[in-house]
């Protein structure tokens, strides 16, 4: 969706607005903010900055005195924060933003509480257990909260615990693949399932899922591990499994079908282009550069240019199609 600003720029570039009237036109088209908009902006800015300054002041003070604060005081403080945040959430039931912020703060304080617990009582727990427990405990709040940011936090926590788990153990698939690929497969499957669920629910059921940044992040979480798996199979000489390549091609086909035909989203398509370029360059690079040929470099250079230009052309075409 073109922003008012870019539309205005286009009008100027076509010469539709006389040069001497551009200043007035900016105001008429509401590109330049009027006094009311400025007032609101400065109001919010001062509020956020002042609030952040106070919050950071408190944190720095606590950090400075950390070693001198007693054990119970620390626990009491953090638990108090959690309770306060929940109370704030209940209080701000009508004000959407304040309520969301309060719930998010409560969730973060929950994590701080768990970390404090682990640090104080030296339970010997592994790092991944911290994140996993945190994710499980915050799940009810995410379900009640019903806004994308808190669910993305949950997804991030699960992803982190998966990564940390594989750093500690060999996983269930340890006998089939080595550590890294098992972790990548798990990440890919988890994030893809969530992406599918999210898009499906956003389309059929809940309006609050409609913000695009969240599924885009999930798509990144889905695409990056898969691309990495394919790169891994390219660069590892012992691997003869075609599974990553097959999964990758299937993923591309499905992404194309959904995000070109069903619910168009340029960001997803751009991400797919990036994945294709990366894999192609790696594939040809691996096979051509072994012999130290200068021609190989030239070919790769032209390949990147060609694929980059091709992607740009295609994406621009899709973009224009979406706008008309």
């Amino acid at each position, binding site marked *: 969706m073109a922003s008012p600003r870019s539309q205005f720029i286009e009008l100027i570039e076509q010469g539709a607005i006389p040069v001497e009237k551009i200043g007035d036109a900016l105001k008429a088209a509401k590109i330049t903010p009027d006094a009311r908009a400025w007032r609101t902006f400065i109001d919010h800015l001062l509020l956020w900055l*002042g609030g952040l300054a106070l919050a950071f002041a408190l944190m720095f003070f606590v950090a400075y005195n950390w070693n001198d604060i007693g054990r119970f005081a620390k626990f009491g403080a953090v638990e108090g924060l959690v309770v306060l945040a929940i109370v704030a959430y209940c209080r701000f039931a009508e004000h959407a933003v304040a309520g969301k912020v309060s719930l998010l703060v409560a969730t973060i304080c929950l994590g701080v509480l768990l970390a404090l617990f682990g640090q104080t009582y030296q339970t010997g727990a592994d790092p991944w257990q911290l994140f996993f427990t945190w994710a499980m405990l915050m799940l009810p709040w995410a379900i009640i909260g019903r806004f994308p940011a808190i669910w993305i936090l949950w997804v991030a926590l699960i992803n982190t615990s998966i990564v940390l788990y594989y750093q500690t153990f060999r996983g269930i698939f340890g006998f089939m693949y080595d550590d890294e690929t098992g972790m990548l497969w798990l990440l890919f499957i988890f994030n893809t399932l969530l992406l599918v669920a999210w898009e499906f629910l956003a389309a059929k059921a809940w309006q609050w899922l409609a913000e695009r940044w969240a599924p885009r992040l999930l798509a990144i979480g889905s695409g990056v591990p898969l691309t990495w798996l394919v790169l891994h199979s390219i660069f590892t000489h012992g691997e003869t499994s075609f599974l990553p390549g097959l999964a990758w091609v299937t993923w591309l086909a499905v992404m194309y079908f959904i995000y070109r035909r069903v619910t168009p989203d340029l960001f997803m398509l751009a991400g797919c282009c990036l994945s294709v370029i990366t894999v192609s360059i790696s594939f040809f690079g691996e096979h051509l550069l072994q012999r130290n040929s200068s021609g190989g470099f030239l070919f790769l250079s032209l390949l990147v240019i060609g694929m980059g230009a091709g992607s740009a052309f295609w994406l621009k075409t899709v973009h224009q199609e979406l706008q008309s």
Partner: protein
Amino acid sequence: MSRQTEQMWAALLQAGLVQGASSATGKSESPWYVKVLLALSGWFAAFFLLGFIGMAFESVFRNSTASFILGGAMIGGAFAILRIPKNEFVEHLALAVSLAGQFLVVVALFKIAGHHGHIGWLLVVLLQAPLAVVMPNFVHRVFSAFIAAFSLNMFLGFQGWPNLVDGLIMLLAAWCWLNEFRYPQQMQRIRAIGYGLVLALIVLKGMALLGSQMTEWFFSGKQAELWIKPYIGEVLTGLVVLYVVWQLLERHGQGISGSISVPALVAALLVSTLSVEVTGLTAGLVIMLLGFSGANRVLLGLGIGALLIYISSYYYLLDVTLLVKSGTLLAAGVALLGMRWLLVTMLPKDREVDHV
């Protein structure tokens, strides 16, 4: 034509600023992530091109004259290609060739400068500044403006004047963004240079923050003694903030004696003072102000991101203890919320505000 464009055209018609039917097609530039994709492809292509040149013509890298001539030819060739009406492939090819050519020229320049490394940086500025203005490609201009600003800082740093140029860069960037629509023929150019300068400013402030001790060590061992204290940079940027606020006030018909001018300027002054402690605060704020005044969400986002990074990095500053920092932030928080309270009482939301 999309509904939004229609509405905008209607508003302009009503204000008597345009006539007739709009010829706008409602299409616009591609989104930022597409531009990033293109920039990345250009870089990688340039990298592989250099690899090719390096392998095929090894002598070129060793001989600075040959490097200079070939690089110059490549840049010139790219310029020629970019001038003709473009398709995507040609545009990318030219970008890659130009980047590779620039690399060759820069290597040659530093070889020519020899032991006087700082002269090399000056030469880079002299190369990149004209390219930023002349090259007919948006991404290229952003890149050249960025490198020019960065190199200027390095050059002055080696002369013993680090952090000085931040104010200059901010001033230039502010001018670009405040006058973005004033010269319609040069709009693309001004905007690209504006983005490049803003990115350079963010990076330089970040460097100043992370390496305040490093800067002294890095530059003091070289040519001249350190003439400039680190906070001089912040004082200069503070002056630029005052300039920007003044310009914005003028635009809304508030001269120096307008009713909100004095509080606004005082507030700006307070923030600049705070920024001496919390490096980069003014930079982030100025970027946000410029972004908001032009309804430029990318700029606004950059400002917010930069501001958050600087405030978080304040934690790691080793000059003062956490207790002092805590006190500073407390005072700052109280002052900011106090200013907000003043704003709310002086200008209640419901009052008619057409002049202020």
